[in-house]
């Protein structure tokens, strides 16, 4: 008799929890981390279909999980963000979707731009909500452009004297903008209902979910979605005080966002993909001034609230390891990409559980022998005395399913702690 879903769920949950708490689990857990489009590729659908057909997407993930049996998983609702149809309904300019300027089997890609101008910091800091509605949304979503002319919301503070403002919302362009947002919302709502059902079904089948929330490092919020890389890096020289004030302003917003989502999903894992603070992007001095304090504050707040921050240290963070060593022990699951595995184990091995490090090049173009040899090294080095979850360096869109199978089987066999 095989184990029941509940038994499997409890067994895997304990394995993962032990690893995160830096205790030695029964074996090294393994997962896809951000499986991204791998299930689509594995089940033979295009990346475009994965973004446009939620039913097919969730079915692909289910089949992939049943076939590979990961110890933990990332909700594809997160991995693939928002259904393509919803992004189309508001004509999102911030992302290129498969089949729209790039081939149907290519991953979506982010388009950075200066969605906030350098001279708009004060406006943003004084009223982030107003800025979001009247400036940000009109610039990112084409159909929401008319919102730049929305009536001043604070006029409604006049009480019923403010009611005449409602006429402004009935102007055809604004009504149609709000209508497109409503349409997108309905699509997302349907997708989310399916995601909730999926999480429930996967739980029943024995698969625990890693993260119920997503947020950004405060510096990255400014850099990724508002100012763009070029903008935010120039601001470090041209208007450092304003940049720091904006970072201060959004720090509680970023933790609040995570808390609200965690409450709604009932899952304590908070995914924090880090983008612009890694080695090579800025100096340690700049990291210390602009990037780290607010990220540290965010992480500590989440831990205080009983959540498990899961920062994705994309790129190389080897020079930043000493900072990470400062964080509370056994409370964080860090995803790692190209950071040096020996230094990582040595410097933060007793601080946080690490996941990742498996080269996507090997999983895509390697041989079974090479895959096993590197997985062995990871288990021996990073997995020594616990604190490691086997995972890929980054989103494994194009991995070869046969090599992934070899990788999973080997880890489950060799990764047993004796």
């Amino acid at each position, binding site marked *: 008799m095989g184990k029941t879903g509940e038994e499997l769920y409890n067994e895997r949950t304990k394995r993962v929890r032990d690893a995160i708490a830096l205790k030695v689990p029964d074996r090294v857990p393994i997962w896809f981390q951000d499986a991204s489009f791998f299930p689509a590729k594995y089940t033979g659908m295009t990346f475009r279909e994965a973004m446009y057909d939620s039913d097919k997407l969730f079915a692909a993930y289910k089949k992939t999980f049943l076939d590979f049996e990961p110890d933990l998983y990332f909700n594809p609702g997160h991995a693939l963000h928002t259904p393509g149809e919803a992004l189309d309904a508001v004509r999102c300019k911030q992302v*290129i979707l498969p089949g729209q300027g*790039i*081939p149907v089997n*290519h*991953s979506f*890609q982010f*388009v950075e731009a200066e969605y906030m101008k350098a001279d708009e910091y004060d406006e943003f800091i004084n009223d982030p909500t107003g800025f979001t509605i009247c400036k940000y949304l009109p610039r990112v979503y084409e159909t929401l452009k008319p919102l730049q002319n929305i009536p001043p919301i604070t006029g409604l503070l006049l009480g019923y004297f403010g009611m005449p403002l409602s006429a402004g919302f009935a102007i055809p362009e604004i009504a149609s903008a709000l209508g497109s947002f409503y349409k997108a919302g309905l699509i997302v709502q349907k997708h989310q209902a399916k995601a909730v059902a999926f999480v429930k079904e996967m739980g029943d089948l024995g698969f625990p979910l890693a993260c119920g929330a997503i947020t950004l490092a405060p510096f990255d919020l400014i850099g990724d979605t508002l100012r763009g*890389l*070029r903008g935010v*890096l*120039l601001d*470090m*020289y*041209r208007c450092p005080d304003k940049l720091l004030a904006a970072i201060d302003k959004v720090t509680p917003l970023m933790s609040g966002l995570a808390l609200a989502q965690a409450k709604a999903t009932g899952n304590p894992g908070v995914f924090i993909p880090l983008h612009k603070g890694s080695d*090579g*992007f*800025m*100096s340690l001095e*700049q990291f210390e001034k602009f990037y780290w304090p607010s990220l540290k504050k965010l992480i500590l707040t989440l831990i205080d609230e009983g959540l498990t921050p899961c920062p994705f240290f994309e*790129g190389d963070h080897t020079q930043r390891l000493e900072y990470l060593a400062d964080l509370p022990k056994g409370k964080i699951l860090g995803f790692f990409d190209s950071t040096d595995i020996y230094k990582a184990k040595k410097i933060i091995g007793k601080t946080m559980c690490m996941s990742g490090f498996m*080269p*996507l*090049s*090997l999983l*895509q*173009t*390697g041989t079974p022998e*090479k895959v096993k040899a590197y997985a062995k090294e990871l288990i021996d080095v990073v997995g020594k005395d616990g604190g490691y979850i086997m995972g890929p*360096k*980054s*989103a*494994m*869109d*194009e*991995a070869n399913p046969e090599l992934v199978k070899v990788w999973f089987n080997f880890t489950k066999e060799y990764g047993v702690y004796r």
Partner: protein
Amino acid sequence: MSKELIDAIVNMKEKEAVDLVKKMMDKGEDPMTILGACKDAMDSVGKRFEKGEFFLPELILAGEMVRQISEILKPKLTGELKTKRLGKVIIGTVKGDIHDIGKDVVVFMLDVNGFEVLDLGIDVPPQKFVEAVKDFQPAVVGLSGFLTLAFDAMKETVEAIAKAGLRDRIKIMIGGGQIDDEVRKYAGADAYGSDAMEAVSLTKRWIGGK
């Protein structure tokens, strides 16, 4: 005043640098001298980047300062700054990938190290690389890619160059997010580099340099 201008640029004093140039122009300084100072400053910025003292903010700001200065000089410029170029390199982000940060840093570093660089931009189809190799006649081609889809796009690009009979004339280097020696073998490139400095040293080794 050239020395002051170089210092202002290298010390990231944007306003000071631009004001100095305006002052120099008012005094009737030869725009070519100012351009030469800019070039020296950029070389120095590149060296500091190589040493790990400068990072992306400094590269971007230095580029921005020189852009502004060039705008000021433009109406008075009579010729181009003649610099000795060590050899030609083509750089581009491969088909399907629209990432440009890494590529731009490589272009910058090759340029300040004295190479003539043709930047083909992002999402460059194999055929465009082939045409550019024919027309521009580089000694080195650099393929950049951030996403894993770049592995196949790099392989296709190398194959297209080979099919056009141009493979033996050039060295091909690759780099970006998940690129390593496994991908180099898979794509059939000559080398991979993990950062812009490696792109420079590979190019120097192949073309010969200072």
